[in-house]
């Protein structure tokens, strides 16, 4: 059986010659291998990756690469391992096929790391769009694969790029033990039609919606300097990915007694930061304005619109907000609404909701809110400033556990 699989993997390599897929890292001897989760070899690899990336000067021009160096560092992986809390016998499932969005630069590397950390061999379909971040990451991996100590990893992992030819997707799907799909609903539905073996595990990360909650009572007690800091963190969450990531916030719920002064103070501070730090190009502002007008067309009439030049648009929707996932901004458009208490948030939460970034709530308050309201949505709550982070628990899955198998021993 193992022999047969090896041969089939050889077929995948054959595709290269027909130029259907472009294998980004040479490796002629693909050899399936599974490990324990968090094996020393893999941890060593991630740590070297982090260091290698840190040594590249260019890394520091990209916030998402800086974050990546931190994510893969020894210290952070140690924390992940602790979070993984494994007290069972576990091994990787086998070969994981990762289908990553073609339009975000760094997502594919996290998907790959999930596969590695859970103990698998991986074939990663990487974005076809040209991103400098993508190139830097691949160069880093290439140089690590040259090291003798990582030869096993080199031979059990593969990065490929192809236009969405279904035949290639079919071929790889037919031999994989796990398939991870990141994408919009339409793409996921299309790929899901492609057959996978009976025992193959599938995880889909579909289009999601994220929002923020701010406790007005706490904000009132907060020093001016710290409000500035909060605005800075919110800026990072909201603007780094032009509000286009699933975990970028679009909506801010102000919880507590309405306080227009302090709300406006926060937006003013945010505006100042955007003015200083964010460079809009023409297409940003066209996209942003077009998005605003589309919201006007698609939603009920808005109560209010406040614009800070093109830096920041704040929209107060009509009183009844249905289907919150349709309230989406681009490059700094935020919807806002006042609610009296955190439990009122439940009226707006549905399956589409992923990340809630918060300020001014205790973990206990949030836990009670989640447990007592029979919610279908919200998979993640993080303090404002951490919305764009990526965790091994994602979209409600314990990803590393899903990608590994448990062996029971009595």
């Amino acid at each position, binding site marked *: 059986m193992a022999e047969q699989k090896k041969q089939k993997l050889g077929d995948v390599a054959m595709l290269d010659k027909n130029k259907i897929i472009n294998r980004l890292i040479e490796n002629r001897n693909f050899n399936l291998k599974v490990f324990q989760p968090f094996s020393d070899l893999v941890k060593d690899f991630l740590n070297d990756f982090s260091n290698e990336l840190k040594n590249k000067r260019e890394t520091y021009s990209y916030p998402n690469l800086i974050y990546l160096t931190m994510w893969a560092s020894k210290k952070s992986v140690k924390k992940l391992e602790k979070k993984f809390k494994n007290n069972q016998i576990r091994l990787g499932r086998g070969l994981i096929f990762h*289908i*990553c*969005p*073609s*339009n*975000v*630069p760094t*997502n594919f590397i996290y998907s790959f790391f999930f596969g590695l950390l859970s103990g698998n061999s991986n074939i990663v379909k990487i974005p076809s*769009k040209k*991103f400098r971040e993508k190139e830097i990451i691949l160069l880093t991996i290439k140089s690590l694969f040259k090291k003798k100590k990582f030869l096993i990893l080199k031979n059990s992992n593969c990065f490929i790029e192809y236009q*969405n030819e279904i035949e290639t997707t079919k071929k790889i799907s037919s031999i994989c033990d796990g398939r991870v799909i*990141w*994408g*919009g609903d339409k*793409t996921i539905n299309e790929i899901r039609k492609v057959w996978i073996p009976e025992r193959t595990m599938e995880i889909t*990360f579909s*289009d999601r919606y994220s929002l923020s909650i701010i406790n007005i009572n706490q904000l009132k007690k907060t020093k001016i300097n710290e409000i500035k800091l909060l605005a800075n963190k919110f800026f990072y969450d909201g603007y780094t*990915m*032009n509000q*286009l*990531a*699933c975990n970028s916030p679009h909506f801010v719920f102000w919880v507590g007694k309405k306080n227009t002064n302090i709300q406006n103070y926060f937006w003013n501070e945010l505006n100042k930061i955007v003015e200083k730090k964010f460079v*809009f*190009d*023409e*297409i*940003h*502002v*066209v*996209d942003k*304005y*077009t998005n605003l*007008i*589309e919201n*006007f*067309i698609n939603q009920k*009439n*808005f109560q*209010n*619109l406040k614009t800070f*030049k*093109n*830096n920041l648009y704040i929209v107060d929707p009509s009183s009844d907000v249905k289907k919150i996932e349709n309230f989406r901004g681009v490059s700094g458009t935020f919807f806002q609404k006042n609610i009296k208490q955190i439990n009122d948030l439940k009226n707006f939460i549905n399956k589409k909701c992923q990340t809630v970034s918060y300020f001014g709530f205790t973990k206990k308050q949030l836990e009670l809110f989640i447990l007592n309201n029979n919610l279908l949505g919200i998979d993640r709550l993080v303090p404002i400033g951490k919305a764009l982070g990526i965790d091994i628990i994602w979209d409600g899955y314990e990803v590393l556990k899903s990608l590994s198998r448990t062996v029971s021993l009595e």
Partner: protein
Amino acid sequence: MNIDQNFLNIDPFSLKKEDKLEKFLNYINRLTIHHYKNCKIYGKIIKNLKFKIKKKHNLENFPMLPVRIFKKYDLQSIPRNKVVKKLVSSGTSGQELSKIYLDKENARKQTIVLKKITETILGNQRLPMLIIDRDPKILDRSVINAQLSAIYGFSIFGKHYCYLLDDEGNIDYKKLNEFLKKYSHDNFFIFGFTSLVFENLIQKLSIKLICSNFKNGILLHGGGWKKLDKLKINNDNFRKKLFSKIKLKKIHNYYGLVEQNGSIFIESCECGYFHTSVYSDILIRNNNFEIAQKREKGLIQLFSLLPTSYPGHNILTEDIGEIVGEDNCKCGKQGKYFLVHGRAKEAEIRGCSDVR
């Protein structure tokens, strides 16, 4: 909603700012109210922008629609049964297309104004017309794309039509030579898309196989430079190449939106700039949508007095341009004169909602 006939009758490039502005503002104001009342979607947008429709406004304060809206939504200010023609943009496959709905009156005005503007370079007599394209031979003219619409639109200035290309897209030398033999001793009109003109007249045409040069030709071309940018061909060497190869001197680029058919902007030979007419205007905005200085590059916003059956009178394009001056161009035309520098570049980050 009608523009008064007198305004339609004046020479399109004859008004200085002080003579044009008040009237123009008045029409834009009336158009804004007209569409506000008659187009539900437009009305909703105006309301949500908190625009005070009854107050007096400067030109730059009137609400502009982003051009992409016409791709996603059907915007009409007339009842459906009044639509006589639907224009669609010619975009490449896979892209969404703009849809423009015309009633009889709007279609008529487009023709009149296109004529007024084009006459300034072609004169008021129909000229023999060489079209740098294939014969479209399409019978159903109720839905037409921008490319066809331009060919049909401009064909009213021509006669004895000759299509340069055969059905396979090759130059038909027999037809071309017949045309040149008969008409090239006097003015004749050449029309085509910039990229097709480049491909066929500059690249493919064999001088040895033609019986005459094009020195009496007047070329009108448009449709953008996107394809030619890659080949590093700009307006200047485009003109030089046409002159050195076929002695063509009178070359006019035109610029305009399918959303504002009729009130196009034509480049003068003498200066190489596009000009606004009395029916149109332009503003350049920086990335905060503030009005840019002369000679400062920014997003192009275009006004047209023609759209009455759909709210296309005030549009924010995705093109980059700059205003060079106003009312003092050396070619003698009044109005603003400007340059277009192509499409704004696509942004890099595109979210995780789409794998394609």
